[in-house]
């Protein structure tokens, strides 16, 4: 029980910090409903601004309505939020991810931007992005700080993910 309370506390701390996080990019924020938690899908729910913003752009974060609530009410409903990472330029085009966090745990990673300039890119991304999603989630759970041997695109992807995780305070 104590553990649960601590987890909730850290979630709320993260949410409060996210609310106070200054947004200064054109990246759209994505409102996500509160309980029950439904991970957002990447395509369609988020429109992104200029892809050239690269590392200087801050992503935006939105949270459920319980963000401002004290711990007592937070214990009643699970909180879900989405956080968009920085848009990272790679040799093949910009890569940007959005994470869905439910009660302090990453439940989904979606690519909101990825290179799709030619059919080859689309072919590669159609399998690379889902694979990277599971890779990212397993790397996070294995407490791995960095991965050696990533491709340019996946490196951009992981960098964007890292910035999203950092913004989420995870």
């Amino acid at each position, binding site marked *: 029980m104590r553990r649960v309370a601590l987890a909730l506390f850290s979630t709320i*701390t*993260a949410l409060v*910090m996210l609310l106070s996080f200054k947004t200064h990019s054109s990246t759209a924020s994505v409102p996500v409903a509160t309980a029950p938690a439904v991970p957002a899908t990447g395509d369609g729910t988020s429109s992104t601004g200029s892809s050239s913003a*690269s*590392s*200087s*752009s*801050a992503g935006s974060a939105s949270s459920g309505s319980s963000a401002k609530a004290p711990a007592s009410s937070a214990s009643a409903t699970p909180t879900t939020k989405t956080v968009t990472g*920085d848009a*990272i*330029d*790679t*040799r*093949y085009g910009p890569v940007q991810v959005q994470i869905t966090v439910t009660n302090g745990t990453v439940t989904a990673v979606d690519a909101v931007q990825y290179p799709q300039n030619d059919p080859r890119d689309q072919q*590669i991304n159609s399998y*690379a992005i889902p*694979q*990277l999603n*599971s*890779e990212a989630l*397993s*790397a996070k759970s*294995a*407490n*791995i*700080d*960095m*991965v*050696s*041997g*990533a*491709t*340019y*695109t*996946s*490196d*951009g992807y992981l*960098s*964007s993910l*890292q*910035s999203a995780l*950092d*913004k989420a*305070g995870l």
Partner: protein
Amino acid sequence: MSIDTEHRRPVETPRTVHVEHCMGTAFTIDIRDAGRWDAAIGEVIGWLHMVDAVFSTYSAGSDISRMRRGELRLADADPTVAQVLELCAQAQTRTGGAFTAMPQGKLDPTGLVKGWAVERASRLLTEHGAVNHAINGGGDMQLAGSAGPDRPWVVGIADPADRRRVVRTVSGRDFAVATSGTAERGRHILDPLTGRPAAGLAAATVVGPSLTFADAYATAAFVLAGDALRWICEVDGYEALLVGNDGMISTSPEWRAEC
């Protein structure tokens, strides 16, 4: 952008992360010391872009491109060019020619420059007082100090055939990890001894104290393939992990999961 999470996670390790796009890839600077590191990170970013401006083989105006066209002599180039070429010569000697700054007979120190730039950047951060940090340049990284109190840095080595998997992890303090492979699109590592693309391995990872040499050695190990482990045994302080085209993993005798 830099994110200072120090006040956000009072019980956990403070963290400042910056991602910078440079040299056609992404650099991640991850500092685990408390404080504001804007100035230090700014210096590192400036350094990385300076290196790119001098050493880029894509930019026609770089010192390297001008030297290739015979428009610039070494003596007139940025002083870092002579330093890097000296390091390349050392790497060439230590790898028995499996690494060279002249693949295809053209000046191209790219195989060592990124590792060297990251290692120097890491030293800059340490000089600024950020003694616990990691810098990852496109999958090659220098790690300084530790990831947190009582916690070493943990680096996963990606499976070249299946990115969902990490084949091994290596953890420790003050070390470097570099991986060469065919997974990156458009990248072909030529065997300088045959002039043909090396095809004996899926990936080669080298761990050791300096990313400058780990980067060059990973390229050499990839080229040497079946002879790489015998060769790396002769190199003090560096170990290798090879992933074959069949997915078989082999490591040098002194390879440790913790270094």
